[in-house]
């Protein structure tokens, strides 16, 4: 079942191998866990099964104490047997929801595995509901189904669904930063771009009514490595992508900012002046963890698609050794700069065969294993030290001021193991 023969390497010295088999990755619905907090007046209604409701609740729900801005419209046997008209049912559910949450301005109907398999047309439902609820509520749809998306691809699908709705931009050059970032990180980047003299907007905006415009003059910079569809949709609107690595670590952040600065013709001296304080602070913060992470052997299970940039950061800035970098999908275009930065011979595995991956991990006995929530405790029980990767999505890790926090996330499990005497 597995392709063990290495594929021909890419232009850089990295060996990329595709693997097929059992996956152990969340589906795209999981993105709702952070997206529903990012867009403050948006609501995510999954149209799916009890499994979908249970998934979101288990992945995040019981940890969230405020009433969440997500829910599930659970399909039941009456819907499937045709006893109830699904579209009428959906309209009824949405009506109840909007009555309960009149503060909602943007409603996402989120497709799931069951809704995709029975070919429930949510785009038509979204159009119909949009007409009915206009102008108070806009209704969009995307799929977070696990037969089409893994984990972070849900954010990609969500943002891609926003793109056709974005207002047309005036012709002047504008920078669009794409990908959900913690508010604090977004504010830091906004200050930096402003100091460069670049007018920057962010997608998604914090409120539905403030989504940025896009047009032929727009150039966009991806803040996350998993936004293939969003990038394509932006390009269809005439926007152009600025090729860059991702803003993780001091080096990643600098080169990400530099790519934008060069695209907008920012004077190099000004660039140096603006970035110098952040760069100095991030290096200082990273130095505190260099000793703890240097030479540590790290194994990445596929999870969030952040694996390649994270591995690059650990390898180049912290001196860690990469045993294997698994990733659910590898977008060779968007990750070109990152792949180039990986040490020659780094084993990158795209896709997954869970039990084979576990065999390789156990054999390698890494110092640190980055993996999903389902695997972490079993590996810990086998004596391996793990970092669960979902935390890397829920923590501000991008940019200069968070570089130290990012290193700390990897150092903490090692530090903890060293501390415990039980």
């Amino acid at each position, binding site marked *: 079942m597995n392709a063990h023969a290495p594929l021909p390497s890419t232009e850089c010295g990295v060996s990329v191998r595709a693997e097929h088999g059992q996956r152990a990755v969340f589906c795209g619905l999981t993105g709702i866990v952070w997206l529903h907090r990012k867009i403050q007046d948006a609501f995510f209604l999954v149209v799916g*099964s009890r499994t979908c409701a*249970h998934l979101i609740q288990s992945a995040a729900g019981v940890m969230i104490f405020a009433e969440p801005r997500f829910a599930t419209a*659970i399909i039941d*046997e009456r819907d499937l047997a045709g006893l109830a008209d699904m579209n009428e049912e959906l309209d009824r559910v949405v009506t109840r929801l909007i009555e309960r949450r009149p503060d909602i301005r943007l409603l996402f109907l989120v497709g799931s595995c069951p809704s995709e398999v029975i070919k429930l047309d949510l785009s038509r439902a979204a159009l119909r509901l949009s007409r009915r609820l206009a102008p108070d509520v806009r209704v969009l749809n995307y799929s977070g189904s696990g037969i089409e998306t893994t984990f972070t691809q849900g954010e990609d699908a969500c943002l891609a669904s926003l793109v056709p709705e974005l207002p047309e931009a005036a012709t002047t050059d504008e920078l669009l930063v794409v990908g959900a970032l913690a508010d604090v990180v977004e504010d830091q980047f906004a200050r930096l771009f402003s100091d460069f003299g670049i007018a920057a907007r962010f997608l998604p905006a914090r409120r539905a009514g403030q989504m940025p415009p896009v047009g032929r003059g727009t150039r966009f910079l991806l803040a996350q490595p998993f936004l293939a569809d969003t990038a394509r949709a932006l390009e269809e609107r005439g926007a152009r992508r600025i090729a860059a690595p991702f803003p993780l670590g001091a080096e990643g952040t600098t080169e990400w900012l530099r790519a934008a600065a060069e695209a907008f013709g920012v004077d190099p001296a000004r660039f140096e002046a603006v970035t110098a304080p952040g760069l100095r602070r991030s290096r200082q913060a990273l130095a505190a963890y260099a000793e703890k992470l240097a030479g540590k052997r790290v194994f990445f299970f596929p999870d969030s698609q952040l694996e390649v940039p994270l591995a690059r950061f650990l390898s180049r800035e912290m001196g860690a050794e990469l045993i294997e970098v698994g990733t659910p999908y590898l977008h060779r275009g968007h990750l070109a700069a990152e792949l180039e930065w990986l040490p020659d011979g780094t084993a990158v595995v795209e896709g997954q065969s869970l039990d084979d991956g576990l065999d390789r991990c156990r054999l390698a006995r890494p110092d640190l294993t980055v993996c999903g929530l389902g*695997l972490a405790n079993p590996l810990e029980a086998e004596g391996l030290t793990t970092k669960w990767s979902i935390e890397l999505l829920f923590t501000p890790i991008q940019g200069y001021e968070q570089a130290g926090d990012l290193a700390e996330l990897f150092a903490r499990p090692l530090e903890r193991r060293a501390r415990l005497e039980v």
Partner: protein
Amino acid sequence: MQLTVWTYEGPPHIGAMRVATAMEGLHYVLHAPQGDTYADLLFTMIERRAKRPPVTYTTFQAQDLGRDTAAIFKDAVAAAYARFQPQAMIVGASCTAELIQDDPGGLAKALALPIPVIPLELPAYQKKENWGASETFYRLVRALAGAPGERAPRDGRRPACNILGPTALGFRHRDDLIEVRRLLEGLGIAVNVVAPLGATPADLVRLGEADFNIVLYPEVARSAAQYLEKSFRQPFVDVVPIGVGATTRFVEAVAALAGVDPAPILANAPSRLPWYSRSVDSTYLTGKRVFVFGDATHALALARVAAHELGFKLVGLGTYTREFAREVRAEAALHGIEATITDDYLDVEAAIQAAAPELVLGTQMERHIAKRLGIPCAVISAPIHVQDFPARHSPQMGFEGANVLFDTLVHPLMMGLEEHLLGMFREDPEFHDGAAPSHLGRGPSGIADAVERAPKTPPLASAPVPSPIQIQGSDAVRTAPWAPDAEKELKKIPFFVRGKARANTERFARERQLPLITLETLYDAKAHFGR
């Protein structure tokens, strides 16, 4: 289609996983897309199990649909058998695979593996987690317990029983089992097999050797026990030993089946609960208004404990386990209330708000509700949360379980004298509305937090409520206004009964068509309604 904010139960295949994960030597091949693999974390993170669940997911993708999902399933079964070498396998589909109708049972059978392979039909759009656990356990028992045989005659041998019901991810199952084993040991009864927790498929083959069965959790094990009763003539006990009274009845029932004397175990004051409840410091617990919601087993048991063993007043009782609605309705009727049978979190929220309890005994969901309403709460039932797996021994069953329940139910409440002082000196700045029970401190405890926030959001008052839930009663418009001094006096009543006092007073005024609620009205209503 049902709008669901929180769900009390997972889909039925999660129930099957709870059985499979509880057992050893059993493997479950689940035809499911990759998203369904989230279920692993229930066991590895919430229960902190040290092993992955023994589950192989086929993780088919959109591109496989209509092409070779059946082949993917067969390959997964073959690979799982080769790698894990289980004694038996269960196979089935999750919600998505159910729609593509690949027939996992037939496909697995075609492989002709040299072990029992048990197909599961768990209708995901109709049934839920506990039903799935029950059905899975029943199918396993049916398939593996074999043909009824002659039991060895009892003479000279200790009576033996099976304990049926504890699963992985069960609410306190681990600790309940220890207590029940302790009781059986005291009675001189041998335990033949405990299942599913810790059992192998080979153990299930031996089920018939026991003289009778004990059903700890009817949601999971009653149908298997009924099958064993029918085909092996094994009687069963399904008294759930939660609380002193129920534990006593359990011991008596078990002793009767085993033909042993229960008196020695029951004799030497096996629980502290009766004396603690009679101790005069507990007087303040009398008639505390309590709302109970959970799975049927725990809701029923806790309703009885609360009413009969702590002297609370039951003002609400409900369950999300529709399969046991009849029992719960009957119990509610005994307390003069109507049961809340629903799996809709929003309905439960409305029912709690309407009942205005002083204590909520519920699940993690009701903990959210209680926190928002500023009502103390103790968690007594699944759905499960990492906090429901305490490091210490913390059973609900048996006499030690009763001790634990006394503490669990009393701890969130304000102590008697404190409550009195708070009632007497309302203007003491530290005795403001939201003053938390002092023994709970001002730390990040959920209860203290909620109570401290309470003044800003008076939850039970009919004044503007910030939460989106509609307060009941459209006839509020016809209610007389409050005179300022009456309104001020109302604030001197502790906040957790104020909503009730306000509602009663307004009802009193409405019935008498009074134009204004005065101080006099407030106290007239108080005299009229009593406590």
